[in-house]
């Protein structure tokens, strides 16, 4: 998947490494700032009908209004907050489950490990979205929490696979043998030797999971399986705007731009992070 590729891809832009990182930080920073701002202030009441229906962008409503006359910019701004919450929550849940499972598999007996690897290979082929759809269906009620949980579960397969591969690689090294012969417990090995070693690669992967989660959340909401109103998810905004795209095309464009800018920002951040945490890449 994208994750492994982006980690494996040789990076030839080392001179621009810091530029990449800063562009990423700037883009994500804007979204974080907007998301935080909406907690205390938004241009209009998000559920108040403050204008005519489907107004074009104007000085009063910078992105126009939706089909109920609500300010569209306000909803897109709240969308930033929702996307950040979902992305962070899902990536965190995916990380906790995935890293734990991956570590356990790497330490398990060969048969168990093989079975686990085979299962993950199948799970990886299932899109994050599809797994999340099933989990949401299982949760019975669609709310923000169930969407985050579903996406976290779906992402954990990717994290588990990566953790397992990285851990197995570290386990072959001499200093692990040395630690074992000197009587370090396996938990000690995990926390003192393995996690610090695989952390740089994992942290880059977490950033990418965040992007995947943001896209998958928008898709879930687009399918009507995401968080219900008043959570203005970009996916739901796009779904609602699709019906009125002829009269108000901005509604089908603006939330998409917001989403893409966040995901690109995260991907740039991950790229930059990879260059700065991995000294072997920097030297190349």
């Amino acid at each position: 998947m994208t994750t492994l590729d982006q980690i494996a891809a040789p990076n030839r832009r080392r001179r621009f490494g810091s530029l990449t990182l800063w562009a990423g930080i700037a883009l994500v920073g804007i979204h974080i700032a907007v998301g935080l701002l909406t907690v205390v202030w938004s241009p209009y009441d998000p559920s108040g009908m403050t204008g005519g229906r489907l107004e074009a962008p104007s000085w009063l409503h910078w992105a126009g209004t939706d089909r109920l006359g609500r300010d569209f910019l306000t909803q897109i701004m709240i969308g930033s907050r929702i996307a950040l919450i979902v992305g962070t929550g899902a990536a965190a849940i995916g990380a906790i489950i995935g890293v734990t499972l991956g570590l356990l598999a790497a330490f398990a007996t060969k048969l168990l490990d093989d079975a686990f690897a085979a299962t993950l290979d199948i799970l990886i082929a299932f899109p994050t979205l599809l797994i999340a759809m099933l989990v949401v269906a299982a949760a019975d009620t669609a709310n923000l929490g169930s969407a985050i949980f579903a996406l976290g579960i779906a992402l954990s397969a990717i994290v588990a696979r990566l953790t397992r591969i990285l851990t197995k690689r570290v386990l072959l090294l001499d200093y692990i043998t040395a630690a074992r012969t000197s009587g370090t417990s396996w938990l000690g090995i995990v926390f003192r030797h393995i996690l610090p070693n695989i952390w740089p690669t994992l942290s880059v992967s977490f950033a990418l999971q965040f992007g995947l989660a943001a896209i998958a959340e928008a898709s879930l909401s687009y399918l009507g399986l995401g968080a219900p109103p008043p959570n203005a998810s970009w996916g739901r905004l796009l779904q609602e705007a699709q019906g009125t795209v002829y009269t108000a095309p901005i509604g089908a464009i603006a939330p998409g731009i917001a989403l893409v800018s966040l995901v690109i920002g995260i991907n740039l951040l991950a790229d930059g992070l990879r260059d700065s945490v991995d000294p072997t890449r920097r030297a190349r």
Partner: protein
Amino acid sequence: MRRLAILVLSLLIAAVVLFLLLRLLPGDPANALLGVGATEQQIAAARAQLGSDQPLYAQFLGFVGNLARFDLGTSFVSRAAVLDEIGNRMSVTLPLTLLGFIVALIIAVPLGIVAAVRSTRWYGAAISVVSQLGIAIPVFWLGILLVTLFAINLRLLPSGGFPLKGWANFGEASTAMVLPVITISLVMAASLLRYVRAATLDVLGSDYIRTARALGVSFPEALIRHGMRNGAVPVVSILGIELASTFLGAVVIERVFSLPGLGSMLLLAIQQRDYPNVQGVLFVSTLMVLLIGFAADLLQRLIDPRLRDRTRTS
């Protein structure tokens, strides 16, 4: 042979997991079927009719027994045979996915190689930047944008839908496919391109290309004769995963273009708690994923003889 055994075994495990997963879902299909106002008797009658009042093991034995006879049961809602419904839906999803995949390959392979070989030129870098943009775009938004442009503004193509008669109405059916296929192939090409580029960069930095060049082989010839096979091995396994996930991910694109495919069947079945349909679609999807993985594996062995030897000795 060993691979085939693993394939069958995985399929069996998948059947068990799917069955259990769906029975563990909260929510009673009988309730979903009858609505809020149903009486106790009506619900009990519906349960008996659906078979959902049977103990779990009896339901499971029935499911596996039917599977062996290629029978995926009948839908709770429409009472139609699940396999027939899947067959109908497949006639939309399969061409959609395969055509999208082929177009994506045609776009991604040459561009990926160019992006690697000419990574220092502006167009090499431009290809990489565009693909970076491409992986950040959600497939449904690209679909909406293309509909806005080609169906609403330019009025060149239909914005969605599929003829009721299906492929019997070939002209209409194929024009309905154009935009969805373009959408899928663009998104898929963006991520494939990155793999092709990475694989080509690996090949370019390898010793055998340098040796071949030192021996006087021209650069294109070295790349084609020595690079292609080596670069293709990792790409093929990615291709398998991409094809499988596009097939399963068609649910979103089918929604954008209101296509009656496998994905929309699954979405509807989930909403209606139509277990046999959910189960059937997921089972067939898993079968496809496993078969694609199997095919990718065989293809890799065909390309790289070293992989064949390795399994023989192990």
